[in-house]
């Protein structure tokens, strides 16, 4: 690296928005979709399974055990094993990341519902709430902080994990890493790291803001 600066700003300006497939802004867009779709899918799948585990307690132990195993599966090898089924498309990355999301969010949903105090639940029953209305109006709102804490973990690690998909050409900003390596040129790698960390912190902050909006009683109590 003799005399070569760590970051070549002119490269960034030239490649930010060229309108071609490899420009930084299009990679950023691709990254956002590939990282956040698994978070949404994970929540949509984990919510009913988590609720079922609360309703039928015996389901929880085996489900949690299975999810522990799923969470331990390494992402890159799983991408590879999916290749014959999904091809070199974004699904190869999105599917495993969704499974990680489910693995983290099921315990979050179960713990969240378990955090509802018994007297609150009994009050709701006494006030004549049907089970469905009790779930929607009482239990789920109280579970929000625990579920959102899980969601924040999933979102941040998903944003960072998408980049591994670059090894099969589907990594969003991760493609900047393979690009940097092939050309022996550090600037794209620095840009990729900075953008991914910034994106993760932004999404984390937004989820934190959402939590404050969704649980106004915590602010009123002064505990949040």
């Amino acid at each position, binding site marked *: 690296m003799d005399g070569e600066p760590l970051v070549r700003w002119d490269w960034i300006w030239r490649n930010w928005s060229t309108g071609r497939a490899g420009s930084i802004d299009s990679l950023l867009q691709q990254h956002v979709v590939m990282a956040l779709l698994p978070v949404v899918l994970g929540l949509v799948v984990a919510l009913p399974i988590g609720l079922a585990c609360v309703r039928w307690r015996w389901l929880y132990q085996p489900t949690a055990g299975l999810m522990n195993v799923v969470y331990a599966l*390494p992402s*890159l090898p799983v991408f590879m094993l999916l290749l014959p089924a999904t091809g070199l498309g974004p699904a190869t990355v999105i599917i495993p990341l969704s499974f990680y999301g489910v693995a983290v969010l099921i315990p979050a949903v179960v713990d969240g519902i378990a955090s509802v105090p018994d007297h609150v639940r009994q009050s709701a029953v006494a006030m004549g709430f049907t089970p469905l209305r009790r779930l929607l109006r009482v239990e789920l709102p109280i579970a929000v902080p625990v579920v959102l804490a899980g969601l924040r*973990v999933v979102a941040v690690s998903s944003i960072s994990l998408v980049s591994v998909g670059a*090894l099969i050409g589907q990594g969003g900003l991760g493609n900047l890493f393979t690009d940097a*390596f092939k050309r*022996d040129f550090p600037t794209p790698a620095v840009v990729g790291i900075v953008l991914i960390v910034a994106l993760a912190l932004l999404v984390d902050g937004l989820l934190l803001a959402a939590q404050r909006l969704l649980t106004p009683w915590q602010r009123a109590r002064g505990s949040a």
Partner: protein
Amino acid sequence: MNWLTDFFGDPAHWSGPDGIPARLLEHLAFSAAALLLAALIALPLGLWIGHTGRGAYFIVATVNVARAIPTLGLLVLFVLLLGTTTVWPVLIPLVALAAPPILVNTYEGVRGVDPDLRDAAYGMGLRGGQVLGRVLVPVALPLILLGLRLSAVQVVATTTVAAYAGLGGLGRFIIDGLATKDYASVAGGAVLVVLFALAVQLLFTLAQRTAVSPGVSRRQRVR
């Protein structure tokens, strides 16, 4: 499924410097070195911050950022800056990946010890260091081991990526297979890494069962 027999049935894959046993040992060595270094840094720091309560804010801030850092990017950057003459360009990102879960779980474990228990230990005449070693660490052990387990599994998974930068380990089968369009090698390597990660997970779960004092039955999860 015949790629499995293609890969595992070929005797050439079972010997020599690029055979399965050699690659497995490389993978194990890289992962173990990274985990050990991370533990040497994160365990004392987590114990100290949890015990004294100083710098707790530092933990929350570091862990959030650290979880967001893409290891592949860090790996490429260090390899470009330092070259591949030493193993440090691979070890530094792996340690950066492995340290935060150990740090946060050790900290949470020590901090979560019942204050009454801590006071009782002081009341019995134990000094600060003794309280830490004889009371806080045994009680926090489930969480400390959970942190080590999460780190170990992540490190084993991510050492695969190290092959991209030209280093050894089981990732070589995947990266080389991708480059030469040899799917049998890609899938065989992938299966090996998955099995390795699951074995590590199982090993640490068993360690958790046997190492934790029977008096400490509390089971908590922090990620």
